[in-house]
Every structure is written in C-alpha cells, then in structure tokens.
C-alpha cells in the first residue's frame, strides 16, 4: 500500500466563507461539465461501437459489398449507388436503427450517474441538479449528431458517385431528367418499348413485353404490335407516356441535393428525438435496460401499428405519437418509411395529421420528456 502524504499539498482556503463565484446554483451547465460528460460517454466502448456500427458500419459495409459486386460482375449486380439504394438505406436502416441507438445513448446518459454511484458525488458539489441534467443534452447530441452525419454523408457520396448512368424506370431504360414533352418525344421515337415496357391502364393494352436487352417482344401466341400502323403505335405510345410521366419525374438516377439535405435533417431530427426521449425516460426511471426496451417497442411496434390503424375514439391520442408526426414530416421524394409520408407515390395510409400538428407534437415530446427527466433529477433522493 502506498503511503499517505502528510504534506498539505492542498492549501486550506481562507476560513472566512470564501465561496467561489461560479454560478453554481445556475441551471445552465458550464463548458467543462459538458466536455467531461462527452468524455464519460465516449469512453463507453461497447456503446460507442454499437453507435458506429449502426450509423456508419452497416451502410458502409452494404455499399462496399455492392461496389465490389458491381465491379466484378456488372451485368449481374447493378451499380452500388443511385436513388433506390439511397432511399432503401435511409428509410430502411438509418431512420429506424438510428433512432434506437440514439435512444440507447440517451438512456445511458440519463441513468449511469445513478447506477455507477456518481450522482451522489455530483450533488455534493453543490452544483444545481438542473445543470447536471442539462449538461447531458449537448454532450449526447455532440456524439450522436456527427455520427449520423458521417454515416449519411457516406451513403450520399456513394449514391451520387456510384449511381447508374441510365435510368431504369419500370424495367425500361429511359434517359433521365426529361421534361414532359421530352418524355413524350422519347416515347414516340421508341413506341414499341414504351407500349410494351411501361404500365398502362387504358384500353390500348397490348400483350407484349420488353426483354432484358430492351427489345419489345410479343407474348407467345399473340400477334404483338406487328399489325399496328406506325401512326397508331405513336399515338398509343404517347398515351402511355402521358400516363407515366408523373411517376417518371419522381424517379432519379441519384437523389437531388435538396432531397439529401432534407433527408439528412430529417434523420438527424429522428436521432435527436430518440436521444432526448431516452434521456428523460431513463432519468425518470433511474435505470437503463427497461427504458431501452420501451424505446424499441415504441419505434418498432407501437409507431407502425398506431400510425396506420386509425381508431376513431383514439384518433387524437394516435396523433400524439411522435413517430406518426415524423412520418408526416418525411421529405417529399422518399418512399414511405411506415407506409406513408410526405412525397412517396401512392395513397398515404397514415392516420391523417397536418404538418403544423406534427411539429407541435415533436416539440411537445422534446420539451415534455426533458421536463420530466429534469424534474425527477431535482426531486430524486441521491
């Protein structure tokens, strides 16, 4: 055992009440508290590994495999990037799992002082309990926001720079970015491909298809298009083009800059919500495991369920679901994460809610859970 030094290395303060003027009673945390809180979270290796794997690792590995597969066998494997891959990764993985890992980080930040026995030491410093709570918010966000941003940037970069060079619309190779008249002109100049390849609900449906080489072919035993005059072909192709243009104009080689920015902000907001709610819930309950489970249940089970199945007597309660509010704020141009959303094609099946109400719901969740967590922090016996 080492020897205790008797040297008064720590000088005694003046015995008069020399109280430091550091605004210790203020609810605003200082920079050092935030920095050390970041350090405390960052040193949790398991948690950080999970955050990095989900936000950066999974998209990176998925895109890397696709890049390699496309480079080795381009005819069997399509390009690694592009609009479809972007939407699949963002809505399928980053949105849902980003929420869950952010919630896990929040639950950790909200409970570890208690479970590790540090809360008592912190309270004894005389620092405002509110400041102790609020220091966790910027600290956690300083970790989760950059992680989400890095993962999302990788996805965007690959999806833009490794995007397909030809637009594959409904299995038909179409030049990208055409205007309505341009699309009509293309259809008139490729009438057989347009008629046989694009979906059409009108009366002029012809039993034919487009093969893998982009050639129009009749189904076996049918006359196909051979008996139609060139004028009739052009007229039918024009009809087909007009019916398909609205869907075509939402199909891109790669996501636009505006879509990427909006989507990035959207998934960052989702991660922020996950963190703040997790923080408040864990602070309220004083533990980590149960709040994490509850957050997963909220995101994976309750939100999809109550976002779609409208129950007339509970419709306003359903509108209070933060996941539904986020689905309604989904950027136009993305497919619907939970079967609905802002800009995807088709009829939205979400429980209806205005964007204003959605924003209010999100603010209420952020403020409400922060208030609950802070209240418990102040009232809790240490």
């Amino acid at each position, binding site marked *: *055992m*080492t*020897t*205790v*030094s*008797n*040297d*008064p*290395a*720590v*000088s*005694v*303060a003046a*015995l*008069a*009440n*020399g*109280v*430091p003027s*550091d605004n*210790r*009673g203020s609810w605003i945390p*200082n920079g*050092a*508290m935030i*920095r*050390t*809180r970041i*350090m*405390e979270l960052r*040193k*949790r*290796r398991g948690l950080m590994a999970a955050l990095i794997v989900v936000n950066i690792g999974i998209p990176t590995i998925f895109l890397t495999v696709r890049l390699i597969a496309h480079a080795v066998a381009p005819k069997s494997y399509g390009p690694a990037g592009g609009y479809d891959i972007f939407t699949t990764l963002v809505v399928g993985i980053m949105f849902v799992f980003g929420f869950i890992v952010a919630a896990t980080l929040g639950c950790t930040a909200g409970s*570890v002082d208690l479970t*590790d*026995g*540090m809360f*008592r*030491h*912190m*309270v*004894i*410093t*005389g*620092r*405002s309990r509110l*400041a*102790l709570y609020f220091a966790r918010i910027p600290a956690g966000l300083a970790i989760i926001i950059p992680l989400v941003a890095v993962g999302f940037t990788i996805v965007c970069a690959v999806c833009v720079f490794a995007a397909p060079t030809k637009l594959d619309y409904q299995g038909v190779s179409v030049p990208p970015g055409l205007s309505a008249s341009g699309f009509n002109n293309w259809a008139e100049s490729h009438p057989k491909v347009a008629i046989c390849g694009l979906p059409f609900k009108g009366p002029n449906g012809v039993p034919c298809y487009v093969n893998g080489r982009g050639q129009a072919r009749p189904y076996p035993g049918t006359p196909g298009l051979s008996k139609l005059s060139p004028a009739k072909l052009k007229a039918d192709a024009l009809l087909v083009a007009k019916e398909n243009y609205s869907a075509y104009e939402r199909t891109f080689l790669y996501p636009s800059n505006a879509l990427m920015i909006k989507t990035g902000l959207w998934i960052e907001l989702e991660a922020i919500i996950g963190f703040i709610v997790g923080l408040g819930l864990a602070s309220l309950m004083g533990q980590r495991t149960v709040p994490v489970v509850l957050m997963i249940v909220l995101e994976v089970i309750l939100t999809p369920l109550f976002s779609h199945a409208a129950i007339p007597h509970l419709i306003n309660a359903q509108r209070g679901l933060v996941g539904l509010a986020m689905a309604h704020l989904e950027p136009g141009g993305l497919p619907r994460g939970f079967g609905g959303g802002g800009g995807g094609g088709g009829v939205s099946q979400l429980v209806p809610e205005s964007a204003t109400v959605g924003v209010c719901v999100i603010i209420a969740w952020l403020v409400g859970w922060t208030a609950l967590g802070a209240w418990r922090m102040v009232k809790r*016996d*240490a």
Partner: protein
Amino acid sequence: MSALTIDEMSRSDSVKGSWAVETHGLTKRFGDNVAVNDVELLVPRGCAFGYLGPNGAGKTTLIRVLLGLTHADAGTMSLLGVPVPRHRDRALARVGAIVDEPRFHGHLSGRQNLEILAAAREREARGRIASSLERVGMTQRADDRVSKYSMGMRQRLGVAACLLGDPQLLILDEPMNGLDPAGMHEMRDMILSLVAEGRTVMLSSHLLDEVERTCDAVAIVDNGKVIRQGPIAELLAGAAMEVHVDCSSPERARTILAATTLGEKIDVETTGLSIHLPSGAGRDAIAEINRLLVEDGISVYRLEELQVSLESWFLQVTSRLGDSE
C-alpha cells in the same frame, strides 16, 4: 486531546459563534419510521468530530439530509454558517463528503472521475486534481480504471474527490470501511493533518477506538436522536467510574460496600473487587471506599481508578437509553 467545552472550541474559530454544522429540530421520516428525530447538533469548527451510533441509528440519513441528498421533514440546519437547503450551492462549495461506500464510473480512470467532479466545482478545482491524488497516495494508480481498484483505493479516491473543493468541512461516512490496519492508520493521520490545517472533519463511524484516537468531540446518536454530544474528555469525565480494589477479604468488603450507595455494581474477583461508581461520583468516593474498608479492618493493598474508554461509555449510554425505553 483538549478538554475544551463545545463553546470554547467554537470561540477558538475565526468566525465567532458560527458552527461548522448546526441543526435544530431536524427530523426525517420514512413512512412511520423516524430516521432522524428532532436532532440538535452543533459541530465546532476546526476539529475532528465523531458522529457515533449503532447500526440503523440514523447516522447516514442525517448526513444525507445535511448534504441535500434527501430532504428534511422538519427543522433547520446550516453548514459553515450558511443555511441549507436555501443556499446549498454556497454551503456545499466548501464542503467535501463521502457518503456510504464511494463509487465511481468504473470504466474511467480515477483521474478522469475527478475531472468530472472538478468540472462541477469552481474553475480552480481542476488544478487541485494532481495534488489531491498525491495527498491520498493515488498518483501511481490514478490512470488505472476504477473497476480495477480495491475498496481501500476507492476510499482514497473518495477523499481525493472531497479535497477538490479545498473544503473547510469534510463529512466522512465510515471512511475506515474496507481499509486494512495500515490504511486505517494512514487515514487517521490524514484526518489529523486536515484538522491541523484548520479544516473541520465530521466523521461518522462505528469504530469507537478509531474515533477516540482521531476526534476531539463526539455526538452519540441512537434511534435517530442525539443523546449526548461534546468534547470526548468532558463526556468521559462525567461517565460512571470503575474502581478496582485489591484487598484482604473481598467478600466481606463487598458486604460492607453493598450497604452503602457508593457502588452501583460490585463484583468480586480473584484479586479483589470491581466497583462501578454511580454516574457523577468524584474521586472522593474512592477515598470513602478506602476509609470504610480500613475502618472495618480490611487491608487495602491497592486502589486503581480504571480509565473509561469511549467504547465502554458508548455502551453505557446507548444501553441505558435502551433500558429506559
């Protein structure tokens, strides 16, 4: 050890009339259980003060109330003359404390844990980390993870955490727990050196021998109430005295003394008598015993006034309270 009264001890401090810890009517209930019962406690400044009591007496609860870890149901209190909880930020700025077993973030090093705590204190606290670690002998292990620390090392780290605020008052709850004899010795030396610097150390413990060696004054708590408090020397002076009489005929001597009020309890031993004098009996009682025995023809070879230890006094006081209830 000084034999000053509590008033004299307080007057020796630069802040006249102001106590390090002062409570009046302090009460804390948990349902029907009164853990802290109308406690009147005065801890003088600049001394080591022992807060003693049997297990479950309410020692830790009182400390938790003082530090704002839990709220009081009634009463008033102040730390270093600053009323709490109204001004707890000001009061605790110059207080360091260990309550129960000191626990820290196990995945961080001792130094990193202190950095977290220093960040919640004033700006200068960060500069005290190295000296605090050195003072508790933890410099060599400061960068190891706390999960690898022994109980004794965590106790030391707890004391280092207390020193970050350059405290005028340290409240240590069972600081000897988990320490080996050498560690207890070092801890005792450190407490004494802290007191020598002018700090006040309030020490809760059930190790009465350690308290007697370390503290100037004590308070005894039982069933949530402070039943005695004051300088140790003063308290023991008023304790029941025990006298050993080495004489020629112990049985006859016992019969003679039993007819008087000089002995509360008289035991015959192989070498004589052991007599417990009534509380408050002075040295004249010993002379009277000698006179009675000699006048009755009993040869008295030796009279020995036995020193009352804090432990035996503590047991007398607490068991007396138990008997009365």
